[in-house]
């Protein structure tokens, strides 16, 4: 079983989680607006409504810990410490972006910050995460990996293969499933045969818990317990956070699959408001200040990114192969 961690979070940790959620919210709202204006090429997948998952989970990690992410990865990257300026630059397809402006929203990575990349192939975050955890184990590093995925990926073969391998090899990994109610354009019930994803952990012989994905503190506690377990050699865990995807699968998705009731209920699902409610009396102004600061940072990032240069034609052929041999 996962053990409980401290009941009350320090002010510092509370502020970190809250600020991260506000940054993610601001980032996604600005990305949405800029996308509608035609400033961002390609397509983007937003994590509005899911801020507590990324912020709570990554707050439980150390700087040297690693994450693998999904096509809906902006929040994960920000929460693990990626630079919003370079992220925005990537969305705007500018050469200062993390991928030199050549890969866009779905491939943002900051390896130095432990972000091994968002990924456009559903479920591969789990296989790649298993490999990163194997690397940590073999190199005797005291770190852990979070592999983010969604309920859509939970039905892919790679999900089973990755969780089975992680269990067999007792790897330091947390499989973090954001159940956001929809996978692409259809609801949970089309994709998952069980009431929860977490109960599948039983099949692999490691713990699985379901937490309220609106509550960043609950998410933090579950991941902290799973990370402590992984760090002490206990092997993998599965944490499922029940959350809600405010937007469509992609920006521009007409969301015809959402029922009126779901839309109405979804409007009240707000992790940032929930965190504010958790605060003691008199903290409202403090939180408002943090939120305004976060919004300013992200607005500045978007403004900076929009004025940058596109990658030069020579970038077409860069980084296809590494430089030749060493040794």
């Amino acid at each position, binding site marked *: 079983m996962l053990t409980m961690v401290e009941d009350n979070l320090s002010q510092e940790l509370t502020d970190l989680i809250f600020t991260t959620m506000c940054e993610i919210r601001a980032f996604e709202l600005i990305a949405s607006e800029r996308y509608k204006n035609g400033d961002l090429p390609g397509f983007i997948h937003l994590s509005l409504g899911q801020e507590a998952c990324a912020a709570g989970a990554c707050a439980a990690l150390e700087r040297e810990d690693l994450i693998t992410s999904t096509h809906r990865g902006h929040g994960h990257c920000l929460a693990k410490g990626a630079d919003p300026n370079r992220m925005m630059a990537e969305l705007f397809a500018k050469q200062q972006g993390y991928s030199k402006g050549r890969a866009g929203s779905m*491939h943002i*990575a900051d390896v130095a910050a432990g972000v091994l990349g968002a*990924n456009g192939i559903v479920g591969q975050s*789990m296989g790649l995460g298993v490999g990163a955890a194997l690397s940590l184990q073999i190199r005797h590093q005291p770190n852990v990996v979070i592999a983010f995925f969604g309920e859509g990926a939970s039905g892919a073969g790679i999900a089973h293969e990755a969780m089975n391998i992680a269990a067999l090899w007792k790897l330091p990994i947390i499989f973090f499933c954001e159940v956001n109610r929809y996978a692409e354009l259809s609801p949970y019930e089309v994709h998952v045969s069980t009431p929860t994803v977490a109960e599948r952990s039983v099949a692999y012989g490691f713990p699985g818990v379901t937490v309220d994905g609106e509550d960043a503190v609950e998410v933090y506690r579950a991941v902290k317990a799973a990370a402590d377990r992984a760090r002490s050699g206990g092997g993998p865990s599965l944490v499922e956070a029940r959350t809600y995807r405010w937007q469509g699968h992609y920006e521009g998705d007409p969301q015809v699959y959402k029922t009126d009731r779901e839309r109405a209920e979804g409007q009240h699902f707000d992790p940032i408001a929930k965190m504010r409610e958790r605060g003691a009396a008199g903290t409202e102004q403090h939180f408002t200040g943090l939120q305004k600061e976060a919004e300013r940072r992200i607005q500045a990032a978007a403004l900076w990114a929009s004025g940058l240069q596109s990658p030069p034609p020579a970038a077409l052929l860069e980084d296809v*192969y590494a430089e030749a041999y060493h040794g």
Partner: protein
Amino acid sequence: MARIKYYQALTRAIREEMERDERVILMGEDVGASGGIFAQTKGLHAAFGSQRVRDTPIAENGFVSAAVGAAMTGLRPIVEIGFEDFVTCCMEPLVNQAAKLRYMLGGQVSVPMVLYTFGGGGVNAGPQHSQSLAAWFAHVPGLKVIMPSTPEDVLGLVKAAIRDDNPVICLLSKKLIGTSGEVPDTGTELVGSIGEAKIVRPGCDVTIAAVGQMVLTALKASDFLADRGIDAEVVDLRSVSPLDISTVLQSVCRTRRLAVVHEGHGPFGIGAEVVAQISERAFGQLRSPPLRITPPFAPSPFTPSLEQLYLPSAERIADAVSHLAMEAR
């Protein structure tokens, strides 16, 4: 010099590189204590232990994806996929991840991994255990694809592949597992160079470019051709990506005739690519239309008599090349 078998050259290459670099690990189905289906990993588990020599479940997508993740984070994994046909079960992590991550991440990572596998026909293994899919992999930017045909090249090229910072697919030939050849004595290091073809038989009348086990078949064909007064030059491509077209081009500029022999299917295959590139560069030099000699566009039969018809034989190559050499003489 020492005389060793094709599969032993593989074992030696892995062993030497694992001794040299502790970041090198080996994973795959039954690569551990059992030593592999062809004894190709015999002794490695005993030498390096179960941390670095890892049996995996039968889950190619999962463990190849894991190898990619490990390669991004400080290890240099070698992955075995027993039969080349099974690589289709892990095309996702190879094509969408290993080949593209360096590019997608703006050069933040490299993916130094080797996937080796045994492919090709001639052992009555049937449609799902005989394929040669080199052209599939060679079509993907970011991957390198090698096909050594001798123990010496297995040793040298696999070692080079392990030291390469790119994902390298090494396609070995099942039919050649028991063949022998000369390699330097243990203690003398041999590291090959990926992307260099080799003239394995010089000749002046026609160029036969071959790869994998077809190199040996082409050499046999060249003996038949010599009996008919035709002096064939045989080029072992050795690497399909990068493809050393300049060695083939130089040969064709001397012989003015080209035949390409391989085990994969003809359409969109290695031969199609070689012929296209030579035609683009030396169309005016050719005295006769270039020729591809490949299996027919059908699955590989298990039936011994049919498989003999299926694979290009030395006789068939000699006959086809004789016609080529006779044309416009």
